[in-house]
């Protein structure tokens, strides 16, 4: 049978290839399903998977889509198993992953921001205090891709103490790298360790520690989980829940969080505990019932196993995680899910940043792809501050530990060298390795004022955010370019113009200039960033006001089109008919 791996205690993993998988059908009551397992397999080691909505009644009018669709509760009853160390797992599965998927969010930044705004409005009206808002990312699995290989060899690099790999079918598996413990019961002692509060990439740990917003986010969930554990108070122990610690820091490689611990003594059974506490407070919201309603309103998909729980269960003892930082594979389709806690003082853009930060650990699965920067040299680099900023962000995006100052002094050094060598305008192409060593290539720059002829091409996927040596997406798009066109002009899923393969887009409408906002999906552009910040752009010695505005493809006949980049400046453009 396919191997199953699940965290256990003392940094060991349950490993089994001999088990029986029992699933709860849709029309069966989850609590009685678990009671039956409790009765029939009490002393057997079991690995459990409970979906987010395992205890909810299915609604008839539900149009949300499924990315993953698995039975609401599943129990692997293990006939035999071993407790293995990480190194033993690596020896057992020596195959290292050779390929990696590229994930794209299924939700555009603009929709994400809109939903965060609507959640905040409900918070102001008193509907709830906090809601956990999540979204899915999707990818096509590369050839010979194995979630198991990644699980064994790469997941150890992130602090995910509650990780599990569950085979659900011949070509179906869950790969869960959760750092969060939901419930741990040993004897009568039941504890929970909710995580809330996230350090944004590029920020300092003290920002997390001192933030009243991040503090409140966790405090609310602590009160909620105190409540959920207090429902388990029993005659035998007559205990009330207590907070053992509050706001400890958990350091994951790609971010840090704060977490707390709450405890109660109870004699309640597994099925009762689940029925009273599910779904977990940290991934639903507070108050829970209203939050769950809102989740069903704004999230366009069923969470399925995501934000449910995975863990082990034997006798009266068990440990369950919160199934976050998880991906799901079925055939060659891959989905990854992540989310953020939204409170009143959430800034929608920061939450989007947090959403991306929590995805960034997917980057641990990829080989570093060298970051590229192309600059104009004309007795010094043009738009130098913007180039430094972009290279810094591009490196951080791939989890390279650096700061703005380091990049700044690096560029100053490069500029000084070029000053001694280059006496005429040149294009300089810099390629940065992970250790910040670089190569520089200079080519003389010939002046051009030829209009650029563009061919419209619809492209529904996401384009790279930063410039790297990986040009695969663009090479594929450019294959469709006709010879008469110089470049392609991308139209996104929403029908808006994005960018060309090397230029940002600008357009004149009336007496003003506009450029598409980054939320339409373009690459971070130095030339564009410079002029947006300035708020103006100069064409033929005349200066125009410049602002961000989407350009629907349908408006193209009514605008004057331009393209530009930091090396070639602004050029007139026309469409190929």
């Amino acid at each position: 049978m396919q191997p199953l791996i699940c965290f256990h205690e003392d940094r060991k993993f349950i490993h089994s290839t001999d088990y029986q998988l029992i699933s709860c059908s849709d029309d069966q009551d989850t609590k009685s399903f678990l009671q039956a397992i409790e009765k029939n397999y009490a002393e057997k080691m079991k690995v459990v998977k409970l979906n987010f909505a395992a205890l909810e009644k299915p609604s008839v009018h539900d149009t949300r889509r499924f990315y993953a669709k698995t039975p609401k509760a599943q129990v692997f009853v293990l006939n035999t198993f071993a407790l293995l160390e990480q190194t033993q797992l690596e020896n057992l599965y020596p195959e290292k992953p050779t390929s990696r998927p590229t994930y794209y969010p299924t939700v555009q930044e603009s929709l994400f921001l809109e939903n965060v705004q609507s959640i905040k409005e409900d918070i102001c009206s008193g509907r709830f205090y906090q809601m956990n808002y999540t979204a899915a990312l999707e990818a096509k699995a590369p050839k010979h891709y194995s979630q198991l290989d990644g699980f064994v060899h790469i997941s150890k690099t992130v602090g995910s103490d509650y990780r599990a790999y569950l085979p659900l079918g011949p070509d179906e598996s869950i790969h869960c790298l959760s750092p969060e413990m939901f419930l741990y019961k040993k004897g009568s002692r039941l504890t929970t360790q909710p995580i809330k509060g996230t350090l944004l990439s590029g920020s300092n740990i003290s920002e997390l520690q001192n933030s009243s917003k991040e503090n409140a986010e966790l405090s609310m969930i602590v009160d909620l989980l105190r409540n959920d554990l207090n429902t388990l108070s029993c005659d035998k122990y007559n205990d009330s829940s207590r907070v053992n610690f509050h706001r400890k820091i958990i350091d994951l490689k790609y971010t840090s969080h704060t977490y707390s611990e709450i405890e109660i003594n109870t004699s309640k059974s597994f099925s009762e505990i689940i029925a009273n506490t599910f779904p977990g407070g940290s991934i639903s919201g507070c108050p829970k019932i209203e939050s769950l309603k809102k989740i069903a309103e704004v999230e366009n998909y069923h969470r399925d196993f995501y934000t449910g729980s995975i863990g082990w269960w034997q006798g009266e003892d068990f440990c369950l995680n919160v199934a976050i930082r998880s991906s799901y594979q079925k055939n060659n389709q891959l989905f990854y899910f992540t989310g953020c806690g939204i409170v009143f003082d959430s800034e929608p853009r920061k939450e989007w940043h947090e959403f991306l930060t929590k995805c960034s650990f997917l980057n641990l699965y990829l080989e570093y792809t060298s970051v590229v920067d192309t600059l104009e040299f004309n007795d010094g680099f043009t738009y130098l501050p913007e180039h430094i900023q972009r290279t810094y962000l591009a490196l951080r995006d791939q989890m390279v530990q650096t700061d703005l100052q380091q990049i700044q002094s690096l560029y100053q050094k490069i500029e000084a060298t070029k000053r001694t060598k280059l006496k005429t305008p040149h294009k300089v192409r810099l390629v940065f390795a992970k250790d910040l060593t670089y190569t520089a290539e200079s080519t003389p720059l010939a002046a051009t004022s030829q209009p650029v002829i563009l061919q419209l091409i619809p492209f529904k996927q996401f384009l790279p955010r930063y410039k790297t040596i990986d040009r695969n997406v663009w090479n594929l798009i450019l294959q469709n370019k006709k010879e008469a066109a110089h470049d392609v002009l991308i139209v996104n899923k929403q029908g808006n113009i994005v960018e060309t393969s090397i230029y940002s887009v600008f357009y004149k409408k009336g007496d003003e200039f506009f450029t598409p906002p980054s939320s339409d999906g373009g690459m971070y552009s130095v030339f564009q960033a410079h002029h947006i910040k300035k708020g103006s752009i100069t064409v033929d010695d005349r200066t125009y006001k410049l602002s961000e505005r989407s350009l629907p493809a349908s408006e193209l006949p009514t605008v004057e089109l331009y393209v530009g980049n930091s090396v070639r400046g602004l050029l007139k453009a026309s469409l190929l008919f």
Partner: protein
Amino acid sequence: MLKAVLVDHHDSFTFNIKAWLKPRFNISVVDCSEVDKINALDFDLVIFSPGPKTPSDYPLSKNFLKSLPANKPVLGICLGMQMMNEIENGTVQAYYPPVHGKTSALMSDNNKFNNIQVARYHSLKCDMTNAFDILASSETIPMIVRHKNKNWLGLQFHPESFLTEQPELFLQSVVELCNR
């Protein structure tokens, strides 16, 4: 042991209130849609729990509160206190910015309450009518109120939260309410 009934408005903190009052009270929880099943004579205290949305979203609870005899000890927490105020023709309005999961210090002439950090979860605030005495406030928001003629105690903050200091002090106030 005193007996209390708690009208539950689905705040997700109901069992924390139960745990806070446990040393002195046996508590029965009744859903806010089933208040007609409560016989107030069976209880020493009626509690109106916190909850989402506004008092006017809970007409059954408000009618039930209105119907209680003046000498019946009643504790209103957050939404519960806002209900009390509306029944006495006070107004409840949006409070911006809302305060959720944060603490502030009580300001009170009564030394017992002054300077105690209490947990706040509210996006509405009460403009109290003169039917109430304000015993403590915070940032001009009434935090502890007592009805002048009825045996009602209102708390805008959450005494059951782990963020509230000295919860036993407020438990004592509730016990005193029942002994009046």
